[in-house]
């Protein structure tokens, strides 16, 4: 993935002027077994967020014996199955500092080898000492690995500056990137975590009041939780603000049909179809229409 501002590499100079030293000393430590730095690092940040996953359970979810390692996507997915929201931080030392200040350790991907002979490694940043120029990590079998910031930045650069924090749904990342945060919540929703997604969308709406996507997400969470009346109200509020949202009309129709308000449901589909949706959306709407008609016939028996 290319990001527009990746041309400015992270450096010590971006730390706040007043930055001295911070260390989350109470972060737990799970020494890794052979090759299993991914599960060990993930268990560490999960535990710090209050999720009680055991190292063994996490190993089963993210460790790929064939590759002797874990993929970033699996770390993200495993976090979701614990009902937590994984958020990939900005590629900067300042972002790590900010998260540490909030009390969240940061899981980072490092390449301890060189680019030609990579040695991938996951570790958890628990402290930065700006005055001494050091980073403190839970890493491998070291409870407290102290590395020079410059060295850390080299290994982190070769790891693509990838780092994530584990949020309890309802917590905002510090200096959140809207689209990245929203993608993270949508992924939680897709993992079937409607309850947690609802909290996260509510939090998002406090930061971005009236945001169309967040309102849609919250309504979807209600629908997924089978709270049909709440879902109906939420979709209607949204459509009052932004009438031309066929996806919201489609879902509103489902919420209405679930309450056996079939005629109103079909009316919503009709309105959406009359607004020239794209072909894929039109198919969705037609499918929903057929579903509603089917249920109508069933209810009439």
């Amino acid at each position, binding site marked *: 993935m290319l990001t527009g501002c990746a041309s400015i590499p992270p450096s010590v100079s971006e730390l706040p002027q007043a930055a001295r030293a911070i260390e989350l000393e109470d972060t737990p430590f799970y020494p890794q077994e052979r090759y299993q730095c991914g599960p060990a690092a993930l268990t560490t940040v999960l535990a710090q967020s209050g999720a009680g996953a055991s190292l063994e359970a996490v190993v089963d979810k993210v460790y790929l014996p064939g590759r002797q390692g874990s993929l970033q996507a699996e770390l993200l997915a495993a976090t979701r199955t614990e009902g937590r929201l994984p958020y990939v931080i900005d590629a900067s030392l300042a972002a790590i500092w900010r998260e540490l200040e909030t009390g969240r350790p940061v899981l980072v991907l490092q390449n301890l080898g060189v680019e030609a002979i990579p040695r991938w490694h996951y570790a958890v940043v628990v402290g930065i000492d700006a005055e001494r120029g050091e980073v403190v990590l839970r890493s491998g079998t070291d409870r407290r690995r102290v590395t020079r910031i410059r060295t850390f930045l080299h290994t982190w650069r070769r790891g693509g500056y990838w780092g994530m924090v584990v949020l309890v749904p309802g917590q905002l990342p510090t200096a959140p990137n809207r689209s990245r945060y929203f*993608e993270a919540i949508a992924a939680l929703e897709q993992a*079937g975590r409607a*309850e947690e997604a609802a909290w996260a969308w509510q939090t998002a709406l406090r930061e971005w009041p009236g945001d169309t996507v967040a309102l849609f997400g919250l309504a979807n969470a209600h629908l997924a939780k089978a709270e049909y009346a709440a879902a109906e109200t939420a979709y209607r509020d949204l459509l009052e603000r932004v009438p031309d949202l066929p996806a919201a009309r*489609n879902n509103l129709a489902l919420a209405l049909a679930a309450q056996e308000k079939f005629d109103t449901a079909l009316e919503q589909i009709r309105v959406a179809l009359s607004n020239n949706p794209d072909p894929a959306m039109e198919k969705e709407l037609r499918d929903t229409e057929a579903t509603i008609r089917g249920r109508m016939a069933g209810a009439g028996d």
Partner: protein
Amino acid sequence: MCLQKARGALMRLVSVSIICMGFAQVAPAGMIGTAYMLDDESRAASLSRIEVLLARQDVARQLEAFGVDQALVVQRLNGLSHAELLELEGQLDAQVAGGDIIGLIGAVFVVLLILELVGVTDIFKSF
């Protein structure tokens, strides 16, 4: 297409979650997920970024010099899938991360690249 993919992924997730979790909830069939709207939004952002490029005077002049109708290019852009748009943006980004794209690689190149990717020309295949 995006919807089908999302639905496929959802079905896989649903089947996995039924087996191994008690907490996950299954969204009703036919519900369009929030990811769809996010996808739509980022597609629109890609489009407008490329359209801003096309609207630049130096780029527009080049298009005209090649005898290409700008409306045609915009029309082709609109027909691209989100993945294709992202690829086009990625290609533009790959030339220069951040900064002024046109200043660094020149309007002619940008125009050629866009034309190639929206299928108006077929120059780069020969390289």
